[in-house]
C-alpha cells in the first residue's frame, strides 16, 4: 500500500530540513572552540613553547587576566609552522600568535594577514625603546612594526665546567686571537678544547653567523641576510675561516670529525661533564642549560660558567647573536588582544616565567633578581648590555636557504664532505636560482 504523493513529499521536506538543521548544529559545535577575532572578552594566544615555560607563562598571564578583566587562554602546539598558517588560511586565526621565528611572521605580513601593531592601538614606540636594542627591527617590515618581542635568548655564550676550567688555569678569552691561544693551550694540555655537534645544521649556521657579525659588523650582517652581498662574499669566507680555525683543526673537537656530525645538540655538551672533562668549551644558546646533567643543573652557578664569544679585537663593540619570540595579531579592531600584548611586552611581565629558567625577558629594565639563578641573571645582563645584537640570520633568510641549503651546507663542510668554497658557492647558486624563480 502506498501513501499519497503529497504526504510523502511533505515528509521528505521535513526530513531534509531536519538534516540541514542537524548539520548546522554540528558545525557550530565543532567551530565554536576556535574563538573569533575580538569581543567576548577571551583572548586566545597560540605559541610553540610548552613544558615549564608554558607553566610560568600561564601563571603570568593569569595575573594579566586579573588586571585587565580579560580571559586569556594559551594554546601550545609543537607544529606551530604547520598549524598557524592553516588556521589563518581557514579564517580561524587566534587573537595573538607568538612566533618562534620571524620568517613565518614576515610571510604572513606579506600575505596581508598580520596587522600593524600601531594600527591596533599598541604603543609600539614605548615597547621598542624598552626592549633589547635592535630586537624589534627584526619584526619590522618597511618601517612598520608587526611584532614585538615576548622573549629573548643569547647564543654567543661559551660554556665551561668552571671548577675544572679554573683549576687548569684557563681564562676566558677577550679577543679572537686570545680564543685561538686558549684553544691551543687546552689542546697542548692533552684535551680536546671544544665540544661541538653540527646536528642537522643549525649549530653550524650559528657559528658562521657569529663571525659574520664580528667580521662584517651589523650592516654587512643585514646585507648578508637580505642577499645584498653574495653568500660567497670574501667577508663570509673570512668568517668561515675563523670558525675553521677554532673547530676544524685536527684534535680541536671531542670525538673528531665523526663527533661533529654524529652529535645532536642535546648530547654535544656531554664531554664537559665527564671527569676529567673530555672537552672544556661549548658555544650554545642559554637554553642549553636545561640539557645539562641534573647534578650540574642542581647548582648551575657552582658547576658551570660562561664567557661571551669575544669580538675579533679586544675593545671592538661587544656582539651578541641571539633570537627571540614575537607576538603579533590579526585584527586591528581586537582591542582586548592589543591590551594583552601591551601587558606582556613590558619589563613588569614575567616574574613566574623567569623563575622557570626557560625564559628571559627581552625588556632591559626587567628585574634580574627574579631569574631562577645567578647564571641566568648574568646571561640576561650580558644580552642587555651588548652593543651589537644580531638576530639569528638563518631564521631570517628564505626557508629554502636559511633552513635548507645553509643547514645542509654547514653539515657537508664541517663533516668534511665538501670544502668551504664549494659549499658557499652552492648556497649562493641556490639562492640566486630561488630569486630567479620568484
Amino acid at each position, binding site marked *: 500500500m502506498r501513501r499519497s504523493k503529497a504526504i510523502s513529499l511533505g515528509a*521528505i521536506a521535513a526530513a531534509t530540513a531536519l538534516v540541514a538543521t542537524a548539520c548546522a548544529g554540528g558545525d557550530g559545535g565543532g567551530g565554536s572552540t576556535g574563538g573569533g577575532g575580538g569581543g567576548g572578552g577571551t583572548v586566545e594566544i597560540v605559541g610553540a613553547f610548552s613544558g615549564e615555560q608554558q607553566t610560568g607563562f600561564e601563571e603570568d598571564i593569569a595575573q594579566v587576566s586579573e588586571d585587565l578583566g580579560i580571559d586569556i587562554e594559551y594554546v601550545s602546539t609543537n607544529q606551530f609552522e604547520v598549524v598557524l598558517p592553516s588556521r589563518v588560511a581557514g579564517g580561524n586565526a587566534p587573537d595573538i600568535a607568538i612566533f618562534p621565528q620571524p620568517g613565518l611572521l614576515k610571510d604572513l605580513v606579506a600575505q596581508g594577514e598580520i596587522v600593524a601593531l600601531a594600527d591596533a592601538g599598541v604603543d609600539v614606540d614605548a615597547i621598542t625603546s624598552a626592549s633589547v636594542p635592535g630586537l624589534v627591527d627584526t619584526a619590522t617590515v618597511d618601517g612598520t612594526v608587526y611584532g614585538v618581542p615576548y622573549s629573548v635568548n643569547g647564543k654567543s655564550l661559551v660554556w665551561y665546567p668552571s671548577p675544572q676550567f679554573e683549576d687548569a688555569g684557563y681564562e676566558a678569552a677577550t679577543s679572537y686571537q686570545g680564543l685561538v691561544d686558549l684553544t691551543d693551550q687546552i689542546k697542548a694540555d692533552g684535551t680536546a678544547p671544544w665540544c661541538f655537534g653540527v646536528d642537522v645544521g643549525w649549530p653550524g649556521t650559528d657559528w658562521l653567523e657569529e663571525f659574520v657579525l664580528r667580521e662584517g659588523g651589523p650592516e654587512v650582517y643585514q646585507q648578508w641576510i637580505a642577499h645584498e652581498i653574495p653568500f660567497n662574499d670574501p667577508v663570509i669566507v673570512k668568517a668561515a675561516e675563523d670558525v675553521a680555525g677554532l673547530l676544524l683543526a685536527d684534535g680541536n673537537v671531542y670525538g673528531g670529525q665523526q*663527533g661533529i656530525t654524529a652529535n645532536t645538540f642535546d648530547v654535544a655538551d656531554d664531554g664537559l661533564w665527564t671527569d676529567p672533562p673530555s672537552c672544556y668549551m661549548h658555544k650554545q644558546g642559554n637554553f642549553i642549560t636545561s640539557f645539562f646533567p641534573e647534578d650540574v643543573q642542581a647548582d648551575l652557578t657552582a658547576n658551570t660558567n660562561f664567557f661571551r664569544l669575544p669580538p675579533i679585537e679586544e675593545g671592538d663593540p661587544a656582539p651578541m647573536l641571539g633570537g627571540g619570540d614575537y607576538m603579533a595579531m590579526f585584527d586591528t579592531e581586537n582591542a582586548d588582544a592589543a591590551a594583552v600584548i601591551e601587558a606582556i611586552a613590558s619589563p613588569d611581565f614575567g616574574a613566574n616565567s623567569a623563575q622557570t629558567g626557560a625564559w628571559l625577558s627581552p625588556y632591559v629594565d626587567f628585574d634580574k633578581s627574579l631569574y631562577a639563578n645567578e647564571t641566568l641573571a648574568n646571561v640576561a645582563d650580558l644580552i642587555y648590555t651588548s652593543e651589537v645584537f644580531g638576530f639569528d640570520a638563518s631564521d631570517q633568510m628564505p626557508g629554502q636557504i636559511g633552513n635548507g641549503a645553509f643547514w645542509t651546507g654547514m653539515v657537508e663542510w664541517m663533516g668534511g664532505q665538501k670544502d668551504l668554497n664549494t659549499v658557499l658557492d652552492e648556497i649562493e647558486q641556490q639562492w640566486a636560482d630561488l630569486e630567479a624563480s620568484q
Partner: protein
Amino acid sequence: MTFKILNALLAIIAGIGVSLALYWVLNFVVERLPEKWEARLKPWVFIGPAILLIAVILIYPAIRTIILSFFNRSGDTFVGLENYANLATDTAFYTTLVNTLLWIIVVPVSAVILGLLVAILADRLAPRGEKITKSMIFMPMAISMVGASTIWGMIYDWNPPGTDQIGILNAIVVALGGEPQVWLQIQTLKLNSLLLMVILIWLQVGYAMVLISSAIKGVPEETVEAARIDGANEVQAFFRIIVPQIWGTVTTVFVTILIGVMKVFDIVYVTTNGLYGTNVIANDFFVTLFQFYDSGRASAIVVILLIAVIPVMIYQVRRFRAEEAMK
C-alpha cells in the same frame, strides 16, 4: 576542558546521526519511486555518498595538486613547466629519486623473500613453536614507524671512541677490535640508506609472513604428495608446486608493501631528515611544503610520485581482474 570533550562528543554524535539520517532519507525517497527505478537507483543511494566523499577528499585535491605544480611557490602565478625543469636539473633531487627507487626495489623484495622463508620454515615447526615464532615476527607490525626509527636509532648510535658504546652495532664492532662508526652517515654504497631500509623491512616481514603462510596452508596437500610420488625433491616441489599456487598472494603482498614504501617518510624524517644523501620523495615533499612554503615545487614532487604509483596500481588491478576471471 570538559567543554571541549562535550563539544567533541556532540560532533561525533551529530556526525553519525546526520549520516544515518541522510541514508534513511535517501532510502525513503528511493522507496517512493516506481519499482523499476527503485531497483536501479538503490545501489547508488548507498554507494553514492562514499563515491562523493572520495571525490571531494581524494580526487579534487589530486587535481588541485596537479594544477598547483604549474604555478609558483605561492600558487598565484602560472609558471608552466618551470617546477619540473628545476627538479630535472637538481642533483639533490636526482639523489632523492635514486633513493626512492632503491627503497621501492629493496624493501618489498626483501620483505617478501624473508616473509616467505619464515612462513615455510615456521610451517615445519610443531604448532606451538610455529605460533610463538610467528607472533614474535609479527610483533613489529604493531610498532609505529617513528617508534621503530627511534629503536633502530639506538642500535645505530655512535659514541666517541673510548667511551661506552650504547649502540649495539658499534658495541659489537668495538668488541671485535674495530673503531665505532657513524652508521647513518656512511654514504659508501648507500650503506646509510640500506640501514634505514632494514627498519622498514623489520616492520613489514610480519605482514608478508602472515599472508603468505595462510596461502601455503591453503595449498592442497594432494598436489604436493602427487609431485613427491612423481619423484620431485623438496626444492622442486616447493618451486614447481607450492610457489605457483601462492603466487597471487605473493604479488599482492609485494604490491601492497611497494605502495607503502613509495610513501615512506617517517623513518627518514626521524633519523637523518634526508641529510647525508638519504632523502626520499615524501620527505622532500614535506620539507619543501612545510619548511620552505614552496607549494609549486612541492606539488611537482608529489605529481612525480603519483605518476610513479599509477603503473603499479594498473598492474595490480589487472592482475586482480585476471585472477577473478580464472575463478
